[in-house]
């Protein structure tokens, strides 16, 4: 019995959502009286691998087969499955992102394990193994009971704070026998937006709707986002009109995000938009229409013209940051 967690990194640095997943695994392991093994794939330094101990991992399995550097769900799932078998994992955890959503269902299917995807709570062990997740695109939650021996969870980012402790982990090289068939998908080209904060893990998000009038006005939102260290998002018609790239579209048919702060500017607050953002901890709505439905879902509202309010808010943030030193 043990808990296994797949830890993702970008250029050798573990992602915040994966640290979240490691500490999530550690809490489950503690509750179950067992240990946590993390698995890392690719080029990561020894110090960084060991640092997973700070978040509760006792052991790190490190797979360095260079063919895995191009992500593919088939080969990666094989690695996770092999690791699960090696450590006798009964709970297997990944992140609910494009990596985890492709790998974890394969792992679950192969190991005949029940799966909860997009978990937002720790498992309730007093009721067996019951985990809370979003359903109906954020309009409700479901409590899912897993009854199989092995359980697979993909964890929604920003669901838990990352708590850094003091432990250290042992690192072990972990080789998995992979065949050519496991690499039968060719990666032709990769295009990563460098430097920006990925929307799915951003704690602060500034988002714009049709009320922004056109892409030429987005600079005011970008300035606010920059000042806050926030990612940018948008409503669907904005992406449909190509004012903003499609990956910024949030809502029922776009991405689902749960930042600490969501600032919605010139967005009416249609039910399909709310579905993607109503897990946000705090919502600020800036809109010139007092009847905009979004105000009903907001914590703070500002009535007025976006092009006047947003620069004013940016200045206020700047002043605040300067005072914070």
């Amino acid at each position: 019995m043990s808990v296994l967690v797949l830890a993702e990194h970008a250029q050798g640095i573990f992602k915040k959502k994966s640290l979240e997943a490691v500490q999530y695994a550690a809490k489950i392991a503690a509750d179950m009286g067992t240990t946590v093994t993390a698995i890392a794939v690719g080029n990561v330094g020894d110090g960084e691998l060991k640092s997973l101990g700070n978040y509760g991992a006792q052991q790190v399995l490190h797979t360095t087969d260079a063919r895995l550097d191009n992500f593919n769900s088939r080969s990666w799932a094989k690695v996770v499955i092999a690791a699960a078998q090696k450590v006798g994992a009964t709970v297997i955890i990944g992140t609910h992102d494009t990596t985890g959503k492709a790998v974890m269902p394969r792992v679950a299917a192969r190991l005949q394990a029940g799966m909860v995807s997009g978990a937002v709570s720790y498992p309730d062990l007093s009721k067996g193994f019951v985990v809370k997740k979003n359903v109906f695109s954020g309009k409700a939650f479901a409590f899912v009971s897993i009854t199989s021996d092995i359980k697979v969870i993909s964890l929604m980012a920003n669901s838990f704070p990352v708590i850094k402790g003091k432990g250290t982990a042992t690192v072990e090289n972990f080789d998995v026998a992979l065949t050519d068939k496991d690499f039968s998908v060719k990666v032709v080209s990769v295009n990563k937006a460098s430097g920006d904060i990925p929307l799915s893990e951003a704690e602060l998000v500034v988002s714009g709707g049709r009320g922004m009038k056109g892409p030429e006005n987005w600079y005011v939102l970008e300035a606010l986002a920059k000042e806050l260290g926030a990612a940018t998002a948008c409503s669907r018609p904005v992406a449909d009109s190509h004012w903003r790239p499609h990956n910024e579209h949030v809502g029922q048919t776009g991405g689902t995000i749960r930042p600490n702060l969501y600032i919605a500017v010139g967005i009416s607050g249609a039910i399909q938009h709310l579905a993607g953002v109503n897990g946000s901890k705090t919502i600020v709505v800036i809109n010139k229409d007092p009847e905009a439905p979004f105000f009903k879902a907001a914590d703070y509202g500002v009535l007025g013209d976006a092009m006047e309010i947003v620069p004013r808010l940016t200045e206020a943030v700047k002043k605040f940051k300067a005072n914070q030193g």
Partner: protein
Amino acid sequence: MKILVCISQVPDTTAKIAFSENNTVFNAQGVTYIINPYDEWYCLVRALELKESGLASAVHLVTVGKADTEPVIRKALALGGDEAFRIDTDSSDPSVVAGQIAAFAQGQGYELILCGKESIDYNNASIGAMVAELLDMNFLGFAAKVDLAGSTITVNREIDGGEETDSCELPVVISCQKGVAEARIPNMRGIMAARTKPLKVIPPAAVAQLSSIVAYEMPPAKSGVKMIDPENMDELVRLLHSEAKVI
């Protein structure tokens, strides 16, 4: 080349979500059902385009669901699917849904299986990858563009923090999202034709249920919006810092 499109029935995007029986049962009263938008707008339309351009020979539809899903399946046939299969069981467990689809597709010679990136009811985003594993096929998730040349499939797909282009040989399972195709509206001819197209009911295979939903919960109601003086953004920043504690 036969294409299989996975069609899921979901509540309309504007449906009011409510539960009964002590929050254990979804209250379907007054709810209209639609084809999961990803399945209809992207998977099905792209499959039809591949057929229309002569790259595919047939577009089959599969739904895991009880008889109440048939109107939605008929709509998918009206859009242009050739034949539909309804696996006669209902489950919220992705292992069951994927297990049924895989058991049905096994040995049927489908070279391209398309599913949506996510269903808007259970939001699992996991059926496609599970089906791929069960059928020992490649899986390309979150495609925004799907092209076929000979037996080589090429997709543009979303990855963490960007996008990439992948290619592989058929067979493959692909999950589709925005960009793959443009939504279509069924026309009268399609609607008439759909009435006589085959919709076969398949008894469910023996697939173990590994999870179940034991209860639902509505998100906590917001306590009400606090309106801030538009002239005083310092006040908003102060509240975000000291009250909401988010900056």
